[in-house]
């Protein structure tokens, strides 16, 4: 079963067994621009994606009002 990575309104299927960082590179998402969470807990990007994992990415780049 693939793992799922959610980024904004999109959900991507990625192969389990790879790290979060490798999955981000595959999806062409800068690891510097997001925080990864699993079950609402922050995780580091060396975590290995498991079958049926659902990782949600929190965008951190802001450009709005200060």
């Amino acid at each position, binding site marked *: 079963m693939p793992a799922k990575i959610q980024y904004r309104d999109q959900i991507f299927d990625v192969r389990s067994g790879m790290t979060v960082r490798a999955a981000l590179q595959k999806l062409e998402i800068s690891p510097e621009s997001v925080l990864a969470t699993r079950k609402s807990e922050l995780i580091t990007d060396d975590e290995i994606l498991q079958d049926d994992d659902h990782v949600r990415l929190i965008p951190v780049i802001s*450009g709005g009002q200060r």
Partner: protein
Amino acid sequence: MKCRKCGRKAVINMRQHKLALCAQDFLTWFVKQTERTIHRDALFEQGSNVLVAVSGGKDSLALWHVLQQLGYPCNGLYIGLGIDDGSAYSDRSRACAQQFADQHGMNLKVVDVAASHGATIPEAAQVTRRGAGKPCSVCGLTRRYLMNRAALEGGYDVLVTGHNLDDEAATLMGNTMNWLVGYLESQAPLLPEKPGFVRKAKPFHRFYERETAAYALLRGIDYIQEECPYSADAKSIYYKKVLNQIETDRPGAKQAFYLSFLQARDQIQFTGSGERGPLPDARCSTCGQPTRGGRQCAFCSTWQNVRARNKPLEPGR
């Protein structure tokens, strides 16, 4: 990956510091680093009366939270810009700011631009030449002016903003790409007070944006995650993306670019054309603030123009 301090599971890896930390140690580190920055960069003294410019975003709410933890007496200031675009962006960001203030028993002052000046920022942008219909220029001018005025009228020692290192590095890149010497001169984590202008400081200027976001998430701070709808094609976001590409290949590059600039700036002879230059003698005929812009300051001139153009026609005309 394990926490370098305690060996438990890490939640964040800060590659530029070669430092991975667990949630508890990260939160402690973050508060200590803020305190260290305030002292190292002589931003303000312990006991200073602080006004925090609050947008409802992660940086400003995290900053307000940390300053309270450090024991600074501080109130929040929210400027209601009236940005809607169908997503009620301003209303939702204000709700985040107000909810945070209520939850933590803190005082939030709200200044609503439409109520006090007769037009929202997008409406004002439509009728002024400033920014050619794009609200960012009018927005920046208005926020800076109103924040400064609120801080002066409230008798605060310092106005602080949540600018992080990514903000500063993106600004630096834009200023350097265009060699905007006046802006390069005035880009600093501290702008000292001078007549008509409150002291301004950026206590988060050494943190990466990921770190301020992680602090807000780990503290359970409910902040507005969307960007301002008008910032989608902003140059600052483009520069942030470019810098993050470099940072991915070379951890610490973003930090070195900005912090080396702060060191180098002290060795550069500027001519005093920026905000750090000498104040002009001229005063705005409307508000009395020192101005380089002629009879009126840019804020008063812009908003006088907006009010004139928004004035409803008399019946029969």
